[in-house]
């Protein structure tokens, strides 16, 4: 984690390293099992078929907001409140928690169609965020 006062940063050297590397190239990579099941966060074996045969693969970065919440209590010194966290499911079935930096909190809706945007927060770290499909380029 980061020093006090700045945004918490992820461990980009852990099991999700290929995910974080792909984000720097503006792609969303998740694990796909030989059985066809997509998964994230990373795991050695597929929870569906238990195979250890997987590849990190680029997926269509479009999805839908399944739910969201708005933090009013501050848990991290580097993040100003209020801020919203959305639960987004991509078409491949994989889910993420992320922010919708371009969307005013009062405009967030369940069922909103969103697509990935890539927020560079340091030389090493780019975060996967989302924006409404309508604004997609």
């Amino acid at each position: 984690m980061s020093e006090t006062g700045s945004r918490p940063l992820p461990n980009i050297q852990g099991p999700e390293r290929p995910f974080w590397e792909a984000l720097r190239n503006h792609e969303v990579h998740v694990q796909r099992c030989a059985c066809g099941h997509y998964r994230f966060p990373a795991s050695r074996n597929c929870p569906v078929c238990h195979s250890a045969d997987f590849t990190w693969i680029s997926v269509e970065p479009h999805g839908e907001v399944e739910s969201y919440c708005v933090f009013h209590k501050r848990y991290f010194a580097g993040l100003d409140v209020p801020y919203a966290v959305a639960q987004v499911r991509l078409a491949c079935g994989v889910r993420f928690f992320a922010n919708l930096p371009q969307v005013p909190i009062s405009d967030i809706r369940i069922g909103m169609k969103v697509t990935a945007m890539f927020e560079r927060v340091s030389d090493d770290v780019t975060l996967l965020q989302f924006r409404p499909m309508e604004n997609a380029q």
Partner: protein
Amino acid sequence: MSQNATAVVGVGTTAYGRLPEHDAYSLGMWALSNALDDSGLGFADIDAVIINRIPDYQRFCEVAGIDPQFVTITPGHGRFAAICIDMACALVRSGRCNTVALVYGNNGRSAGDAYGGADDSYGSGGNGLWFPYGMTSPGAFHALMARRHMQMFGTTPEHLAEISITFRRHAGLNPNAVMRSPIDLDGYLGARMICEPLRLLDYCLINDGGVALIITSAERARDRAKRPIYVRGAALQTVFAESTFPPDDFWYGALRSVSQRSMAQAGLTRDDMSALMIYDNFTPTVLFSLEGAGYCPVGESGRFVAEGHLGLGRRYPANTSGGHLSESYMQGWALNVEAVRQLRGECDVRQVQDAANVHYIAASPVCSSIVYSRDPS
């Protein structure tokens, strides 16, 4: 009565609140001493110990001066109250042990425990991956679920308020509850947002305290000081697949399964229940539990609670102690004690008249259901 039925023969609780002069061992010993006094048993009668939340089982047994034949320790997650009780019953039923002491000690308030931020370990392996987005805390996880429930079924903040207000009213009748001042809808709505749509009064109370139960066979229970309270049914169901994220079905499938299995074991139905003890870490969990266990149809729980059914004197008085929201967050344990005390008729001004059966329900990644009865069959 089944040949290998089990019963609670002793319950013990401490004061709750801010108790900085006690550590978790001291709180556990306080509760266990009370539970043993309550049962008329002594430390030497205990041949199995199940520890929850207290950091170390060896140190606990050392200070208790006991050397049981069986000991185990479980994580300080609220879902483990029912897991431990179910395990205790299995140990007794199998003949493996005679008298099980279940001991819970929590000094979270004095220790400054927070359920969110960099030390958050809630969920499937913790939320560290999501901290850069500010995602943290069990409260936020339940806020996401509550928002979806509102969207799908028209549940409102006023519905959540009813739960909080009702349990606070019950707490006002419980001298050991931490929060006893009445609240009204304005007070609920005016309380600060923590993680929208959840406000301060949708959250349980982190406190210090301890709880202990003594479980033995129904046969041994007959000789005890007080009326035994029978554990007529108990069932668990995990929901771990994709549990990094909230469950699409609000845990209904698992709640239905555990309710049906435990009721079938008990030979009872929901109609036989005199009161409910519902794991209320956050108000929405009560809604999911009512729907999953079948007390109202899926999607109807908001309107169901708004009709007042959970209040004392109504059809399904719930969390008559005040629950986690207003008595103290004793992670399921104190709700199980309240079930026993109601069935013994020890609850004074908050007593449910002629309480015969009480249903404990917990909605979480480990769903659980326990049916307690005054009568053995």
